[in-house]
Protein backbone atom coordinates (compact mmCIF):
# COMPACT_ATOMS: atom_id res chain seq x y z
CA UNK A 1 0.00 0.00 0.00
CA UNK A 2 1.19 3.47 -0.84
CA UNK A 3 0.89 5.17 2.56
CA UNK A 4 1.41 8.66 1.13
CA UNK A 5 -1.47 8.13 -1.29
CA UNK A 6 -3.79 6.93 1.49
CA UNK A 7 -2.76 9.87 3.70
CA UNK A 8 -3.53 12.22 0.86
CA UNK A 9 -6.95 10.64 0.32
CA UNK A 10 -7.63 10.99 4.06
CA UNK A 11 -6.53 14.62 3.89
CA UNK A 12 -9.05 15.27 1.10
CA UNK A 13 -11.80 13.37 2.92
CA UNK A 14 -11.11 14.99 6.30
CA UNK A 15 -11.17 18.47 4.81
CA UNK A 16 -14.57 17.95 3.21
CA UNK A 17 -15.98 16.10 6.24
CA UNK A 18 -15.01 18.81 8.74
CA UNK A 19 -16.33 21.62 6.56
CA UNK A 20 -19.58 19.67 6.06
CA UNK A 21 -19.89 19.21 9.81
CA UNK A 22 -19.27 22.91 10.51
CA UNK A 23 -21.72 24.12 7.87
CA UNK A 24 -24.38 21.66 8.97
CA UNK A 25 -24.59 23.42 12.35
CA UNK A 26 -26.47 26.19 10.52
CA UNK A 27 -29.32 23.77 9.84
CA UNK A 28 -32.41 25.47 11.26
CA UNK A 29 -30.46 28.65 12.07
CA UNK A 30 -29.87 30.25 8.64
CA UNK A 31 -30.86 33.89 8.16
CA UNK A 32 -33.67 32.91 5.76
CA UNK A 33 -35.03 29.51 4.87
CA UNK A 34 -33.65 29.42 1.31
CA UNK A 35 -30.11 30.15 2.48
CA UNK A 36 -30.41 27.69 5.33
CA UNK A 37 -31.30 25.10 2.68
CA UNK A 38 -28.47 26.24 0.41
CA UNK A 39 -25.90 25.74 3.14
CA UNK A 40 -27.23 22.35 4.18
CA UNK A 41 -27.22 21.29 0.51
CA UNK A 42 -23.57 22.29 0.35
CA UNK A 43 -22.90 20.30 3.53
CA UNK A 44 -24.52 17.27 1.98
CA UNK A 45 -22.37 17.54 -1.16
CA UNK A 46 -19.23 17.86 0.96
CA UNK A 47 -20.25 14.92 3.13
CA UNK A 48 -20.83 12.82 0.01
CA UNK A 49 -17.41 13.75 -1.27
CA UNK A 50 -15.88 12.79 2.08
CA UNK A 51 -17.66 9.43 1.88
CA UNK A 52 -16.23 8.78 -1.58
CA UNK A 53 -12.71 9.49 -0.34
CA UNK A 54 -13.15 7.40 2.83
CA UNK A 55 -14.61 4.47 0.94
CA UNK A 56 -11.62 4.51 -1.36
CA UNK A 57 -9.12 4.88 1.49
CA UNK A 58 -10.83 2.01 3.35
CA UNK A 59 -10.59 -0.21 0.28
CA UNK A 60 -6.84 0.40 0.08
CA UNK A 61 -6.41 -0.10 3.83
CA UNK A 62 -8.00 -3.53 3.85
CA UNK A 63 -5.06 -5.18 2.15
CA UNK A 64 -3.78 -7.91 4.41
CA UNK A 65 -0.16 -6.82 4.61
CA UNK A 66 1.99 -6.10 7.62
CA UNK A 67 2.98 -2.64 6.37
CA UNK A 68 -0.70 -1.75 5.96
CA UNK A 69 -1.49 -2.96 9.49
CA UNK A 70 1.41 -0.89 10.82
CA UNK A 71 0.05 2.13 9.01
CA UNK A 72 -3.43 1.64 10.47
CA UNK A 73 -1.89 1.36 13.92
CA UNK A 74 0.13 4.51 13.32
CA UNK A 75 -3.23 6.29 12.90
CA UNK A 76 -4.33 5.05 16.30
CA UNK A 77 -6.87 2.54 14.96
CA UNK A 78 -7.39 -1.15 15.71
CA UNK A 79 -6.09 -3.59 13.12
CA UNK A 80 -8.43 -6.46 14.01
CA UNK A 81 -11.51 -4.89 12.43
CA UNK A 82 -12.28 -4.23 8.81
CA UNK A 83 -11.67 -0.57 7.96
CA UNK A 84 -14.83 1.16 6.73
CA UNK A 85 -15.78 4.74 5.95
CA UNK A 86 -17.46 4.91 9.38
CA UNK A 87 -14.36 3.70 11.21
CA UNK A 88 -12.30 6.36 9.45
CA UNK A 89 -14.73 9.10 10.44
CA UNK A 90 -15.60 7.95 13.96
CA UNK A 91 -12.65 6.01 15.33
CA UNK A 92 -9.79 8.36 14.59
CA UNK A 93 -8.54 10.91 17.08
CA UNK A 94 -7.76 14.54 16.42
CA UNK A 95 -4.02 13.94 15.95
CA UNK A 96 -4.79 11.64 13.01
CA UNK A 97 -7.11 13.99 11.13
CA UNK A 98 -5.36 15.79 8.28
CA UNK A 99 -7.90 18.43 7.29
CA UNK A 100 -7.00 22.02 6.45
CA UNK A 101 -7.10 24.29 9.51
CA UNK A 102 -9.35 26.70 7.60
CA UNK A 103 -12.24 24.23 7.61
CA UNK A 104 -12.25 23.74 11.39
CA UNK A 105 -12.45 27.48 12.16
CA UNK A 106 -15.64 28.48 14.01
CA UNK A 107 -18.79 29.40 12.10
CA UNK A 108 -18.80 32.84 13.70
CA UNK A 109 -21.44 34.99 12.07
CA UNK A 110 -22.98 34.41 8.62
CA UNK A 111 -20.18 36.49 7.06
CA UNK A 112 -17.44 34.31 8.49
CA UNK A 113 -19.21 31.10 7.41
CA UNK A 114 -19.63 32.50 3.88
CA UNK A 115 -16.04 33.62 3.67
CA UNK A 116 -14.71 30.26 4.89
CA UNK A 117 -16.76 28.53 2.19
CA UNK A 118 -15.61 31.02 -0.43
CA UNK A 119 -11.89 30.68 0.37
CA UNK A 120 -12.16 26.89 0.38
CA UNK A 121 -14.45 26.48 -2.67
CA UNK A 122 -12.11 28.62 -4.79
CA UNK A 123 -9.21 26.43 -3.70
CA UNK A 124 -11.15 23.21 -4.13
CA UNK A 125 -12.19 24.20 -7.64
CA UNK A 126 -8.64 24.87 -8.89
CA UNK A 127 -7.19 21.87 -7.04
CA UNK A 128 -9.81 19.42 -8.34
CA UNK A 129 -9.35 20.78 -11.85
CA UNK A 130 -5.84 19.37 -11.57
CA UNK A 131 -6.85 16.22 -9.69
CA UNK A 132 -9.19 15.24 -12.54
CA UNK A 133 -5.98 14.50 -14.45
CA UNK A 134 -4.28 12.62 -11.59
CA UNK A 135 -2.81 9.23 -12.58
CA UNK A 136 -4.79 7.54 -9.79
CA UNK A 137 -8.05 6.99 -11.66
CA UNK A 138 -10.28 6.86 -8.57
CA UNK A 139 -8.96 10.17 -7.22
CA UNK A 140 -9.48 11.59 -10.70
CA UNK A 141 -13.05 10.25 -10.81
CA UNK A 142 -13.98 11.64 -7.38
CA UNK A 143 -12.50 15.02 -8.35
CA UNK A 144 -14.39 15.12 -11.66
CA UNK A 145 -17.62 14.22 -9.90
CA UNK A 146 -17.09 16.72 -7.07
CA UNK A 147 -16.09 19.69 -9.19
CA UNK A 148 -19.58 19.91 -10.67
CA UNK A 149 -20.91 20.38 -7.14
CA UNK A 150 -18.06 22.71 -6.17
CA UNK A 151 -19.03 24.99 -9.05
CA UNK A 152 -22.36 25.63 -7.33
CA UNK A 153 -20.67 26.26 -3.96
CA UNK A 154 -18.20 28.58 -5.60
CA UNK A 155 -20.82 30.72 -7.29
CA UNK A 156 -23.07 30.83 -4.25
CA UNK A 157 -20.33 31.82 -1.80
CA UNK A 158 -18.68 34.31 -4.20
CA UNK A 159 -21.98 36.06 -4.86
CA UNK A 160 -22.60 36.32 -1.12
CA UNK A 161 -19.16 37.80 -0.47
CA UNK A 162 -19.92 40.53 -3.03
CA UNK A 163 -23.45 41.09 -1.76
CA UNK A 164 -22.37 41.43 1.88
CA UNK A 165 -19.13 43.33 1.29
CA UNK A 166 -20.87 45.80 -0.98
CA UNK A 167 -23.97 45.84 1.22
CA UNK A 168 -24.63 47.85 4.36
CA UNK A 169 -22.00 49.36 6.63
CA UNK A 170 -22.70 46.55 9.11
CA UNK A 171 -22.39 43.69 6.59
CA UNK A 172 -19.26 45.31 5.11
CA UNK A 173 -17.61 45.48 8.50
CA UNK A 174 -18.49 41.89 9.31
CA UNK A 175 -17.05 40.65 6.00
CA UNK A 176 -13.86 42.64 6.55
CA UNK A 177 -13.53 41.10 10.03
CA UNK A 178 -14.03 37.67 8.53
CA UNK A 179 -11.20 38.26 6.03
CA UNK A 180 -8.88 39.44 8.79
CA UNK A 181 -9.80 36.43 10.97
CA UNK A 182 -9.48 33.73 8.32
CA UNK A 183 -6.64 34.97 6.12
CA UNK A 184 -3.93 33.46 8.41
CA UNK A 185 -5.39 29.99 7.68
CA UNK A 186 -5.09 30.24 3.88
CA UNK A 187 -1.33 29.85 3.50
CA UNK A 188 -1.44 26.21 4.53
CA UNK A 189 -3.42 25.24 1.43
CA UNK A 190 -0.41 25.88 -0.79
CA UNK A 191 2.27 24.46 1.45
CA UNK A 192 2.75 20.85 0.29
CA UNK A 193 2.97 18.22 3.02
CA UNK A 194 5.45 15.36 2.54
CA UNK A 195 2.69 13.02 1.40
CA UNK A 196 1.55 15.52 -1.23
CA UNK A 197 5.05 15.72 -2.65
CA UNK A 198 5.17 11.89 -2.72
CA UNK A 199 1.93 11.55 -4.69
CA UNK A 200 3.00 14.30 -7.05
CA UNK A 201 0.29 16.82 -6.44
CA UNK A 202 0.99 19.63 -8.84
CA UNK A 203 0.80 22.91 -6.93
CA UNK A 204 2.27 25.01 -9.72
CA UNK A 205 0.13 27.97 -10.62
CA UNK A 206 -2.47 26.98 -8.03
CA UNK A 207 -1.74 29.79 -5.59
CA UNK A 208 -1.61 32.48 -8.28
CA UNK A 209 -4.89 31.39 -9.81
CA UNK A 210 -6.55 31.31 -6.39
CA UNK A 211 -5.09 34.63 -5.27
CA UNK A 212 -6.07 36.36 -8.54
CA UNK A 213 -9.67 35.17 -8.26
CA UNK A 214 -9.94 35.95 -4.54
CA UNK A 215 -8.38 39.41 -5.00
CA UNK A 216 -10.73 40.27 -7.83
CA UNK A 217 -13.86 39.24 -5.90
CA UNK A 218 -12.73 40.93 -2.70
CA UNK A 219 -12.22 44.10 -4.76
CA UNK A 220 -15.65 43.80 -6.34
CA UNK A 221 -17.03 43.44 -2.83
CA UNK A 222 -15.31 46.77 -1.89
CA UNK A 223 -13.31 44.85 0.73
CA UNK A 224 -9.57 44.56 1.09
CA UNK A 225 -7.09 41.80 1.81
CA UNK A 226 -4.94 42.29 4.92
CA UNK A 227 -2.09 44.74 4.37
CA UNK A 228 1.03 43.02 2.96
CA UNK A 229 -1.05 39.90 2.59
CA UNK A 230 2.04 37.89 1.66
CA UNK A 231 3.69 38.69 4.97
CA UNK A 232 0.81 37.74 7.27
CA UNK A 233 1.82 34.96 9.67
CA UNK A 234 0.28 31.73 8.40
CA UNK A 235 -0.81 28.91 10.70
CA UNK A 236 0.16 25.44 9.53
CA UNK A 237 0.04 21.85 10.77
CA UNK A 238 -3.44 20.61 9.83
CA UNK A 239 -2.06 18.35 7.12
CA UNK A 240 0.21 16.74 9.76
CA UNK A 241 -2.52 16.40 12.37
CA UNK A 242 -1.56 19.45 14.48
CA UNK A 243 -4.78 21.36 14.88
CA UNK A 244 -6.26 24.49 16.40
CA UNK A 245 -8.27 23.97 19.59
CA UNK A 246 -11.51 23.86 17.61
CA UNK A 247 -11.13 20.41 16.05
CA UNK A 248 -11.30 18.60 19.39
CA UNK A 249 -14.74 20.05 20.09
CA UNK A 250 -15.96 19.30 16.56
CA UNK A 251 -14.91 15.65 16.84
CA UNK A 252 -16.35 15.34 20.34
CA UNK A 253 -19.74 16.14 18.88
CA UNK A 254 -19.29 14.29 15.59
CA UNK A 255 -17.99 11.08 17.20
CA UNK A 256 -19.99 11.10 20.42
CA UNK A 257 -22.44 8.34 19.53
CA UNK A 258 -19.81 5.91 18.24
CA UNK A 259 -17.56 6.60 21.21
CA UNK A 260 -20.40 6.07 23.71
CA UNK A 261 -21.93 3.07 21.91
CA UNK A 262 -19.26 1.57 19.64
CA UNK A 263 -20.73 -0.03 16.53
CA UNK A 264 -24.22 1.42 17.13
CA UNK A 265 -26.35 1.07 14.03
CA UNK A 266 -29.69 2.29 12.71
Amino acid at each position, binding site marked *: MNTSLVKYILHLGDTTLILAQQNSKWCGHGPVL*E*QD*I*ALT*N*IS*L*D*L*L*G*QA*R*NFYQYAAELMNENEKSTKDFIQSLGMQTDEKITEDILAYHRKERFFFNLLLTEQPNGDWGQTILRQFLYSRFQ*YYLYEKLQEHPD*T*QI*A*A*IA*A*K*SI*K*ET*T*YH*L*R*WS*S*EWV*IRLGDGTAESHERMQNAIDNLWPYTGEMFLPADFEADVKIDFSGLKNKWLDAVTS*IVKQATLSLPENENKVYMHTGGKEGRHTEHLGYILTELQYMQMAFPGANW
Partner: protein
Amino acid sequence: MPAITNDTVQKVWDMLATVADPEVPVLTILDLGIVREVKVSGTGENEKIEIIITPTYSGCPAMDMIRMNIRLVLAEEGLKNYTLTTVLSPAWTTDWMSEEGKQKLKAYGIAPPNPQQNVCTPELFQQEEAVQCPRCESWHTHRISEFGSTACKALYQCDDCREPFDYFKCH
Protein backbone atom coordinates in the same frame (compact mmCIF):
# COMPACT_ATOMS: atom_id res chain seq x y z
CA MET B 1 -29.69 2.35 -22.62
CA PRO B 2 -27.09 0.46 -24.71
CA ALA B 3 -28.16 -2.14 -27.26
CA ILE B 4 -29.26 -5.41 -25.68
CA THR B 5 -27.09 -8.31 -26.71
CA ASN B 6 -28.32 -11.16 -24.62
CA ASP B 7 -31.53 -12.57 -23.09
CA THR B 8 -30.21 -12.43 -19.53
CA VAL B 9 -29.13 -8.86 -19.99
CA GLN B 10 -32.62 -7.97 -21.22
CA LYS B 11 -34.18 -9.72 -18.22
CA VAL B 12 -31.97 -7.81 -15.78
CA TRP B 13 -32.79 -4.50 -17.47
CA ASP B 14 -36.49 -5.36 -17.16
CA MET B 15 -36.08 -6.06 -13.45
CA LEU B 16 -34.16 -2.81 -12.92
CA ALA B 17 -36.92 -0.93 -14.74
CA THR B 18 -39.19 -1.65 -11.75
CA VAL B 19 -36.90 0.06 -9.21
CA ALA B 20 -38.22 3.55 -8.42
CA ASP B 21 -36.25 6.50 -7.13
CA PRO B 22 -37.14 6.84 -3.43
CA GLU B 23 -37.20 10.67 -3.53
CA VAL B 24 -39.05 11.09 -6.81
CA PRO B 25 -41.12 7.90 -6.99
CA VAL B 26 -42.51 8.58 -10.48
CA LEU B 27 -39.03 8.04 -11.90
CA THR B 28 -37.34 4.69 -12.24
CA ILE B 29 -33.60 4.39 -11.89
CA LEU B 30 -33.49 3.83 -15.67
CA ASP B 31 -35.31 7.12 -16.31
CA LEU B 32 -32.66 8.84 -14.21
CA GLY B 33 -29.76 7.26 -16.06
CA ILE B 34 -28.34 5.78 -12.85
CA VAL B 35 -27.84 2.29 -14.34
CA ARG B 36 -24.94 2.53 -16.76
CA GLU B 37 -24.38 -1.03 -17.86
CA VAL B 38 -25.36 -4.66 -17.35
CA LYS B 39 -22.59 -7.11 -18.23
CA VAL B 40 -22.82 -10.88 -18.44
CA SER B 41 -19.93 -13.32 -18.52
CA GLY B 42 -20.02 -17.14 -18.68
CA THR B 43 -23.07 -19.28 -19.43
CA GLY B 44 -25.43 -21.63 -17.60
CA GLU B 45 -24.46 -22.14 -13.98
CA ASN B 46 -21.32 -20.10 -14.42
CA GLU B 47 -23.21 -17.10 -15.64
CA LYS B 48 -22.14 -13.97 -13.80
CA ILE B 49 -23.81 -10.62 -14.02
CA GLU B 50 -22.37 -7.23 -13.21
CA ILE B 51 -24.65 -4.23 -12.77
CA ILE B 52 -22.93 -0.88 -12.94
CA ILE B 53 -24.58 2.16 -11.39
CA THR B 54 -23.50 5.74 -10.81
CA PRO B 55 -24.72 8.25 -8.20
CA THR B 56 -26.44 11.50 -9.17
CA TYR B 57 -24.81 13.78 -6.56
CA SER B 58 -21.95 12.66 -4.28
CA GLY B 59 -24.07 13.13 -1.18
CA CYS B 60 -27.39 11.87 -2.51
CA PRO B 61 -28.85 9.93 0.44
CA ALA B 62 -31.13 8.01 -1.93
CA MET B 63 -28.19 6.01 -3.31
CA ASP B 64 -27.94 3.65 -0.32
CA MET B 65 -31.65 2.98 -0.58
CA ILE B 66 -31.48 2.50 -4.35
CA ARG B 67 -28.73 -0.09 -3.92
CA MET B 68 -30.88 -1.89 -1.35
CA ASN B 69 -33.99 -1.75 -3.55
CA ILE B 70 -32.04 -3.17 -6.49
CA ARG B 71 -30.93 -6.08 -4.30
CA LEU B 72 -34.50 -6.66 -3.10
CA VAL B 73 -35.93 -6.76 -6.62
CA LEU B 74 -33.19 -9.11 -7.85
CA ALA B 75 -33.69 -11.36 -4.81
CA GLU B 76 -37.42 -11.55 -5.50
CA GLU B 77 -36.63 -12.63 -9.05
CA GLY B 78 -34.21 -15.24 -7.72
CA LEU B 79 -31.12 -13.68 -9.22
CA LYS B 80 -28.05 -14.48 -7.13
CA ASN B 81 -24.88 -14.49 -9.21
CA TYR B 82 -24.42 -10.80 -9.60
CA THR B 83 -22.28 -7.96 -8.38
CA LEU B 84 -23.46 -4.39 -7.96
CA THR B 85 -20.68 -1.95 -8.77
CA THR B 86 -20.76 1.81 -8.24
CA VAL B 87 -18.63 3.91 -10.56
CA LEU B 88 -18.10 7.67 -10.40
CA SER B 89 -16.67 8.24 -13.85
CA PRO B 90 -17.95 9.52 -16.17
CA ALA B 91 -19.86 11.77 -13.77
CA TRP B 92 -23.65 11.60 -13.95
CA THR B 93 -25.43 14.32 -15.88
CA THR B 94 -29.11 15.19 -16.33
CA ASP B 95 -28.50 14.74 -20.07
CA TRP B 96 -28.82 11.01 -19.32
CA MET B 97 -32.42 11.39 -18.17
CA SER B 98 -34.86 9.73 -20.59
CA GLU B 99 -37.47 11.73 -22.51
CA GLU B 100 -40.12 9.59 -20.86
CA GLY B 101 -38.64 10.45 -17.47
CA LYS B 102 -38.84 14.17 -18.26
CA GLN B 103 -42.53 13.84 -19.18
CA LYS B 104 -43.24 11.91 -15.97
CA LEU B 105 -41.46 14.55 -13.89
CA LYS B 106 -43.50 17.32 -15.44
CA ALA B 107 -46.76 15.46 -14.85
CA TYR B 108 -45.67 15.02 -11.22
CA GLY B 109 -45.26 18.82 -10.83
CA ILE B 110 -41.48 19.07 -11.08
CA ALA B 111 -39.99 21.02 -13.99
CA PRO B 112 -37.69 18.65 -15.92
CA PRO B 113 -34.04 19.60 -16.53
CA ASN B 114 -33.22 21.78 -19.51
CA PRO B 115 -30.54 20.47 -21.84
CA GLN B 116 -27.04 21.03 -20.43
CA GLN B 117 -26.37 24.76 -20.52
CA ASN B 118 -23.85 27.02 -18.96
CA VAL B 119 -24.76 26.35 -15.33
CA CYS B 120 -21.69 24.25 -14.74
CA THR B 121 -19.34 27.20 -15.26
CA PRO B 122 -18.05 29.29 -12.36
CA GLU B 123 -19.18 32.66 -13.78
CA LEU B 124 -21.00 34.79 -11.19
CA PHE B 125 -24.43 36.37 -11.45
CA GLN B 126 -25.37 34.36 -14.51
CA GLN B 127 -28.65 34.92 -16.19
CA GLU B 128 -31.25 32.62 -14.70
CA GLU B 129 -32.21 29.64 -16.78
CA ALA B 130 -35.60 29.96 -18.42
CA VAL B 131 -37.71 27.27 -16.80
CA GLN B 132 -41.27 26.47 -17.75
CA CYS B 133 -43.87 26.21 -15.00
CA PRO B 134 -44.95 22.54 -14.83
CA ARG B 135 -48.48 23.54 -13.79
CA CYS B 136 -49.60 26.36 -16.13
CA GLU B 137 -46.79 26.07 -18.73
CA SER B 138 -45.92 29.75 -18.47
CA TRP B 139 -42.32 30.77 -19.14
CA HIS B 140 -42.70 33.73 -16.80
CA THR B 141 -40.94 32.20 -13.84
CA HIS B 142 -38.09 33.20 -11.59
CA ARG B 143 -35.60 31.42 -9.42
CA ILE B 144 -35.99 31.65 -5.66
CA SER B 145 -32.97 29.55 -4.78
CA GLU B 146 -30.42 27.52 -6.69
CA PHE B 147 -30.65 24.96 -3.89
CA GLY B 148 -33.90 23.15 -3.14
CA SER B 149 -35.46 20.36 -1.12
CA THR B 150 -32.96 17.79 -2.43
CA ALA B 151 -29.49 18.07 -3.96
CA CYS B 152 -30.91 17.68 -7.47
CA LYS B 153 -33.50 20.46 -7.32
CA ALA B 154 -33.69 24.26 -7.42
CA LEU B 155 -36.63 26.31 -6.21
CA TYR B 156 -38.62 28.42 -8.70
CA GLN B 157 -41.83 30.39 -8.67
CA CYS B 158 -44.27 31.03 -11.51
CA ASP B 159 -45.04 34.72 -12.07
CA ASP B 160 -48.36 33.91 -13.74
CA CYS B 161 -50.05 31.26 -11.59
CA ARG B 162 -47.86 32.24 -8.58
CA GLU B 163 -47.18 28.62 -7.65
CA PRO B 164 -43.73 27.81 -6.28
CA PHE B 165 -42.30 24.67 -7.86
CA ASP B 166 -39.22 22.46 -7.91
CA TYR B 167 -36.94 22.45 -10.93
CA PHE B 168 -34.82 19.34 -11.48
CA LYS B 169 -31.72 21.41 -12.16
CA CYS B 170 -29.47 20.53 -15.01
CA HIS B 171 -26.18 19.14 -13.86
